[in-house]
């Protein structure tokens, strides 16, 4: 049995003539420890798919299971618990809470966990250290660079050691050097066994993954393995993939 299993997932916004089919019946399976890139044009439905996979957006129909758990059969509270225990989120624009320090932002997923404060703090410090920001633990998000904010967001996503990391355009607001650092970090997490599902526009970022799901008009049009070499900009020419695996 696959770790993540989506069966004929449909997400429709609105009704009648105004209805928009964001996800038009997708089925796929993801094994534990995979690094999957989801690519597609703007409005193709990839972000909607990610929010459905994050237990944040109830599909109109279809089945979505994680570790045998039918996520949308869970109640609101149980689904919140599921998100806390199974998922880490990295958002495109970081979504750090501006009035909390970087350390406190990293501690957010632990706030509702029943563990003593010292342990939580230690876990958050470890996560920050993992992304190389232990020296900036007491700075506010506005006092660190965009790349550092992204790394704080990753530290927050991994602080409770979730088995799955969902990342939405993690390089969207970063320069190429910082993008490489962030992608190296994601690859390293994946190598430690974390399942990573990453929505991206960037072929360079997608190059770090080992599997590509290409989406168009709410439909899964391509599901192929890739080499995960990543960071090899020479693989690309004018943003168009030349590697045979991608052709």
């Amino acid at each position, binding site marked *: 049995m696959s770790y993540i299993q989506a069966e004929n997932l449909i997400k429709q916004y609105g009704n009648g003539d105004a209805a928009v089919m964001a996800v038009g019946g997708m089925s796929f399976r993801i094994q534990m420890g995979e690094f999957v890139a989801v690519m597609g044009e703007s409005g193709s439905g990839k*972000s909607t798919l*990610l*929010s459905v996979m*994050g237990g*944040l*957006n109830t599909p109109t129909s279809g089945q979505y299971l994680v570790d045998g758990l039918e996520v949308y059969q869970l109640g*609101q*509270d149980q689904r*919140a*618990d599921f*998100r*806390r*225990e199974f998922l880490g*989120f990295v*958002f*495109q*624009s970081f*979504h750090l*809470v*501006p*009035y*909390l320090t970087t350390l*406190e932002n990293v*501690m*957010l*997923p*632990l*706030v*509702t966990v029943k563990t003593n*404060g010292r342990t*939580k703090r230690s876990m958050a410090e470890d996560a920050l250290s993992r992304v190389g920001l232990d020296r900036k633990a007491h700075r506010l998000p506005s006092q660190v660079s965009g790349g550092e904010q992204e790394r704080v967001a990753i530290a*927050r996503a991994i602080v409770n050691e979730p088995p799955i990391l969902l990342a*939405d*355009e993690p390089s969207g607001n970063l320069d190429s050097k910082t993008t490489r650092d962030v992608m190296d970090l994601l690859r390293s997490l994946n190598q430690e066994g974390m399942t990573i599902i990453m929505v991206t526009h960037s072929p360079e970022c997608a190059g770090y993954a080992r599997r590509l799901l290409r989406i168009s008009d709410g439909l899964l049009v391509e599901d192929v393995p890739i080499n995960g070499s990543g960071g090899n900009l020479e693989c690309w020419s004018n943003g168009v993939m030349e590697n045979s695996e991608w052709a």
Partner: protein
Amino acid sequence: MTLKDIALRNIRRRKAKAGFVLAGLLIAVSTAVALLGLIEAMNRDIQQKLEEYGANILILPRTENLSLTYGGLSLGPVSFEMQEIRQADLVRVKAIKNAANVAAMGPTVLGAVEIKKRKVLLAGVDFQATKILKPWWKIGGTVPNAFDVLLGSEAARILSLKTGDHFKVNSSELHVSSILAPTGSQDDHLVFARLDTAQSLLRKEGRVSMVEVAALCNACPIEAMVSQISNALPDTKVMAIQQVVQSRMETLDHFRKFSYGVALVLILVGSLVVLVTMMGSVRERTAEIGIFRAMGFRRSHVIRIVLLEAGIISALAGVLGYLIGFGSTKVALPFFTGSNGIGVIFDPLLAAAAFAAAVVMGLASSVYPALLAARIDPSDALRTL
């Protein structure tokens, strides 16, 4: 880090919004405290002034017949030529449950005598008690001793008597020791002597016609005292001077109701300010709430964050509101009561009530915004996801 830390950090970050909520609650709480403090202080002021009006309970012989109007107050029926009260029985009044509330007790014997061939009403009184019972009396001369009399102003004029004059009553020679300044009451027509002197002249030794009792003080249970005195003196008719009590109660009640109304309106307005501000704050924080929900916060956690914020600000408003209200009462009181020594007293009950009211008001007004926050769809909140 806890939910409380998040709430505190958000308050610090959104100082203007928190200040607005605080201001709304502060205005409501401090005004309510000031009004209630003023009512309480004015109540004591009125009580004090009413106490200066003298007697408010009358003890009369259980009899019927004549109706007597005395001092502009309806005293009910009394017949001073008929039955009297045994003076020795009055000691029982000192044994009633609320005896400590009796400020003064003035037994009075009344009877008609002839002075200079004119019928005059002679009143035997206890001049010590009368000082308390009739503080408005202005006596020109000395307080009468045995065989001295105090003449009412009209009695002195009609009888052509002045201080130092002598006259005879039933073969006893009496000396005018003083004349009462006009009071505008029936006292102006009376001749006052010491109780024992009058009893002797009227041949009513050991008997009194009526007893005036001053028992008007803060928290004096007048009706209960009337009942207690009635039980102690079963052969008498005891009554409160209803006009004074009722008028006092009505005046205070009107003001109290008005103040409660104003306080209620302010509390409603304050609650509305909190509601609107908290709703605005929740809307502003949609994305942030989306982050919390994505991180695994349950709806109840979001509700708790919003209510914690409201609770912290409300508690602060409760404390500051009481202090500001207390201060405002101190400043405003002289304008309402004049400088008569009535002060504002720290009332722990009012302080506790102000604190509780602020917290309840803040929390109650934040319940809807909190529910609204909890219902925010995290996927809508995180549009980029």
